[in-house]
């Protein structure tokens, strides 16, 4: 039975959820495609490194001396490194380690930031005040210095590096999430949910949080890039894994500075790898932002 005349819903070219909508925008963006290809390539190499790498990454396979480090050849595509190991295999395995560093530090930072942000955003009041002061304090120390401090506290090791990078990201995620949640909490649809009698927990978890996550996802993607680059910076300062034979790009790049004059290609391969991987995540993150954030839709 009908109380009013029935309207037809105009078949729209945009269909589906907001996510699908964003996905469509993303697919049309060449920047996003380039970014996605780079990221997929990176992840694929990282996962398949053990099968793709022609040589073990941590065992010398040829004799080198400080002044004669062979460059690329048919046998060794990227040449040998300063210890006579196959550089190509190391760069491949490096993708794996960089991915581990990026993902672990991102996840840790995300979890920390989400917990803090959620506390602040969900409770407000003095909890919010306390959390935000803590965030302010953490943000008042430049990221790299902060990471250095944390790494110094934890001692050397890749886990220390990952935690340090993660901790630096905690206040960023916390603030982002909290700001979003506060904004969402003010929104009409939250009020509407309250008005129909939806429980508070369900409002926070079912409405406020999911709608606050978009910028967090974007930031997360960008953070992966930053984490990879930051890990290189920390490695340059001597904060890296205990085991130098781990083929981690940042460490590889930092360690080859002394061969810049004798074997400059040694720095080029891990350097390019870092740039390409970070660029992939950055391009993807930026286009995600454009796809998801209405402000960027033009």
């Amino acid at each position, binding site marked *: 039975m009908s109380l009013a*005349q029935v*309207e*037809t819903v*105009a078949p729209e070219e945009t269909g589906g959820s907001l996510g699908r909508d964003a996905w469509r925008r993303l697919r049309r963006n060449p920047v996003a495609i380039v970014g996605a290809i780079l990221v997929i390539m990176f992840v694929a190499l990282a996962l398949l490194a053990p099968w793709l790498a022609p040589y073990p990454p941590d065992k010398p396979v040829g004799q080198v001396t400080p002044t004669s480090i062979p460059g690329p050849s048919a046998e060794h595509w990227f040449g040998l490194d300063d210890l006579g190991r196959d550089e190509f295999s190391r760069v491949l395995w490096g993708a794996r380690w960089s991915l581990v560093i990026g993902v672990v530090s991102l996840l840790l930072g995300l979890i920390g930031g989400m917990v803090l942000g959620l506390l602040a955003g969900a409770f407000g009041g003095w909890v919010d005040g306390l959390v935000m002061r803590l965030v302010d304090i953490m943000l008042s120390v430049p990221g790299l210095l902060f990471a250095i401090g944390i790494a110094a506290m934890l001692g050397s090791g890749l886990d220390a590096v990952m935690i340090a990078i993660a901790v630096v990201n905690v206040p960023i995620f916390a603030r982002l999430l909290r700001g979003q949640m506060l904004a969402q909490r003010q929104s009409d649809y939250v009020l509407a949910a309250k008005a129909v009698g939806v429980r508070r927990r369900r409002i926070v978890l079912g409405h406020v949080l999911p709608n606050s996550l978009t910028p967090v996802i974007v930031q997360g993607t960008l953070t992966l890039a930053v984490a990879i680059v930051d890990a290189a910076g920390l490695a340059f300062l001597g904060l890296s894994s205990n085991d130098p034979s781990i083929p981690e790009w940042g460490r590889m790049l930092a360690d080859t500075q002394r061969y810049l004059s004798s074997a400059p290609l040694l720095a080029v391969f891990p350097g390019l790898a870092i740039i390409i991987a970070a660029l992939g995540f950055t391009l993807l993150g930026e286009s995600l932002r454009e796809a998801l954030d209405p402000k960027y839709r033009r």
Partner: protein
Amino acid sequence: MVFRQRGRPDVRAVDGVGFSVAPGETVGLVGESGCGKSVTSLAVMGLLPRRGVRVEGSVAFDGTELLTLPPDKLRTLRGRELAVVFQDPMTSLNPVVPIGRQVTEVLVRHRGLNEGEARREAGDLLRRVGIPDPSRRLREYPHQLSGGMRQRALIATALACRPRLLIADEPTTALDVTIQAQILELLKTLVAESGTALILITHDLGVVAGMCDTVHVMYAGRIVERAPRHDLFGAPRHPYTGGLLASVPRLDQPRGTRLAPIAGSPRDTIAWARGCAFAPRCPNRVDECTCATPELLGGRHGLRCFNPLRSGPVQEVAPR
């Protein structure tokens, strides 16, 4: 003055809109959001972005063709001969520049006054548009003024060089009714005093009824009906015009009459090239409506419809 212009962005926002305004005349452009009325005003002013938008046709201002005028020539006309007041006074003033400067910059630019003269003149202008304590206001920033005051300041700016044509694009939409009444009254008075031609763009039929000599009703980028206001309100011919009038509750009519809405939404259109854009919503739709494009025909009371409403003399409408 004769305007004939047609804008053709990727989507034809405005298509074959033509109208003219005589000195001292007030012309109304009425339509719902997205009907292209604002695009029209921007096209007239040459304010549409150059990239991605194509404007065809002709805008003749006092014998000068505006569309082909070099940008710097056009710039000397804008603000001096042609002025515009936009919808939202909150965003139309630069938030970081004092009100005074935003008024005087026109005077300095077009009337060649020096800063001091311009300031005095600006004070006079603000007083004329009813802003109390103008010398203080000149020093203030937009956020310190209420919406009504800002719109007054914008009107003062627009009228600073006594333009021959003023386009007011939804000048009162963002304002409360009591403030709207003040602003409309002010516009009416100023236009009458100076003999400026006024194009009033609005979605509010009530505003048009009180202000305009001639009214153009737009739908989906085209003018569908054009008439002197008494004719239009007295005997609307186009089903859209009629529908609009019937769907708005009137304060002066007895309560209890059920409103007669137009079906569908403004998004339900068909391309003009394939018929009448209003056809999907039109209660008077005939077969012809979806296969031929109606032309705007008629003299004083022009109409773009194959099957107009009954009242009044029906012009013969020829299919294209």
